[in-house]
């Protein structure tokens, strides 16, 4: 404490005595200025507007909130958003894992280009992805016409189309969470398993996979959370039929267009709450797996 006061006396611009209670002493200047700016900017851009959302939803009251949220249309959109995001995250968990495995363990021509390409869904604007996917999967599109001819399957303008768009959007998450863990996995454990007579598959299932499972779950959770909130890539391919292929974010937009601000806020709060609970549950599951694996 004494040291803090002296250093503040030497460098008057380092934050003053009030802030020195908050932080450990340092000779570097600018703490007060940068923290003050950070907190002000964060409050104005993020915290106050989010508080306005909570306030607007709270204005409905407890029963008013549930009345706005427990309508058949909202519940149907809830099922579509969360159900299809789970499905897309599951598809990405399987194929993202294979992509990560192939990128880390094998070499093939163009592997570095493939690696760079995995981030495309992060870089490509969602509206562009949306119109491209709906053109591809439309009944007269490249893929849509084949699926129609071979299986009589309609993808665009059905819930299946939403799952396709959400798979595209969530694709990098599983790859990018599993890849670094797989890369840093010490080969000794696998070698030991092989030396002790385990088959390749046994070594994978008992040694490699458990070590990668927490990362896989993280990627799954990130892809899932992204899918629930996704709007741009979905609305073009979804067909947006109320009760069948209407997602929660679209419902918010529709409510806003009808000037039902409170209703839109209620659906927004519902989305945030549900995502938060699910991510919390996944985090707990992950922590439990980590502790089990560590033992």
């Amino acid at each position, binding site marked *: 404490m004494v040291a803090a006061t002296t250093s503040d006396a030497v460098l008057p611009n380092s934050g003053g005595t009030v802030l020195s209670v908050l932080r450990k002493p*340092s000779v570097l200047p600018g703490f007060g200025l*940068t923290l003050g700016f950070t907190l002000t900017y964060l409050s104005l851009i993020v915290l106050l*507007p989010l508080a306005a959302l909570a306030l607007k939803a709270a204005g409905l009251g407890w029963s008013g909130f549930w009345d706005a949220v427990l309508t058949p249309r909202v519940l149907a959109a809830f099922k579509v958003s969360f159900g299809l995001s789970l499905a897309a995250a599951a598809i990405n968990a399987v194929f993202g894992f294979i992509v990560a495995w192939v990128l880390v*363990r094998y070499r093939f021509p163009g592997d570095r280009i493939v690696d760079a390409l995995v981030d495309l869904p992060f870089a490509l604007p969602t509206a562009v992805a949306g119109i491209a996917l709906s*053109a591809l999967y439309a009944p007269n599109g*490249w893929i849509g016409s084949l699926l129609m001819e071979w299986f009589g399957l309609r993808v665009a303008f059905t819930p299946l189309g939403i799952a*396709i768009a959400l798979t595209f959007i969530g694709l990098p998450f599983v790859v990018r969470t599993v890849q670094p863990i797989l890369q840093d996995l010490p080969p000794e454990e696998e070698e030991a398993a092989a030396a002790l007579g385990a088959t390749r598959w046994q070594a994978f299932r008992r040694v490699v996979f458990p070590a990668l499972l927490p990362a896989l779950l993280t990627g799954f959770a990130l892809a899932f959370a992204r899918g629930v909130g996704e709007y741009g890539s979905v609305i073009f391919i979804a067909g947006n039929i109320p009760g069948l292929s209407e997602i929660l974010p679209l419902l918010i937009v529709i409510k806003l267009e009808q000037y039902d*601000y409170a209703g839109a806020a209620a659906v927004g709060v519902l*989305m945030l709450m549900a995502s938060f609970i699910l991510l919390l549950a996944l985090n707990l599951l992950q922590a439990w797996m980590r502790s089990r694996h560590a033992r």
Partner: protein
Amino acid sequence: MLVKKAVGFTPALADSRWVKGLLIATALGFLLLFLVLPLVSVFVEALRRGTDAYWAALMEPDAVAAIKLTLIVAAIAVPMNLLFGVAASWCIAKFDFRGKDVLITLIDLPFSVSPVISGLIYVLLFGLHGLMGPFLKSQGIQIIFAVPGLVLATVFVTFPFVARELIPLMQEQGNEEEEAALVLGASGWQTFWRVTLPNIKWGLLYGVLLCNARAMGEFGAVSVVSGHIRGETNTMPLHVEILYNEYNLVAAFAVASVLAMLALVTLVVKTVLEWRFGAELAATRH
């Protein structure tokens, strides 16, 4: 980033040729279907009626206005978040204080909020029927359905990009170099410009690159606050939507192709930065 290790070459860890071939084929097939085909289709659809129609679609006044507006919004939003990212990472990485973890979590918060909700919160605050709506109207200030709203929504969705790249980078670099500069008599600003900035420049560029790509391509958040006034409040992604809904597919894909090229340039620069300066980027370490 891809750092190849010799792992696959230990005989005990080598998968059989069949397994290897099957897995590579599955992975590449999946990526071809979900990444390459959509990307290629954007350019094929855009050029369906030839290059003349393509250029005409891009030179059309509403398209030009949309391109200009997108550039203006990004030119305001990106520097704002750049300044914030540097300030936030300075106080978080260079100092120890209570509540730091909470602050880092709050900075990441916009990434876990749906883009539509990111727009919604500003409508609730500044819209005609919003909390501050009547006051703003009496003052003759318009935020929603105007450029300020577009900027705010864009700032929100791109909020964490620069900060989350710089915080781990500056934490790893520590304080010794700055302390040495100060002891040798440099002022705080001199220390920042001459010591800190050169150390973080590639990380900073990396963060700005990703921030800019998202700022120019954002759809959901700006769609809620824009009001879709042609030639006035339509950014490029919103213009794509309008053209597509009017069944003007060639024009929609022409504008989309410009955004797709932006995405490709972003990916190339990002990859080059990772290959060339991987050791100086926080994002490439996990």
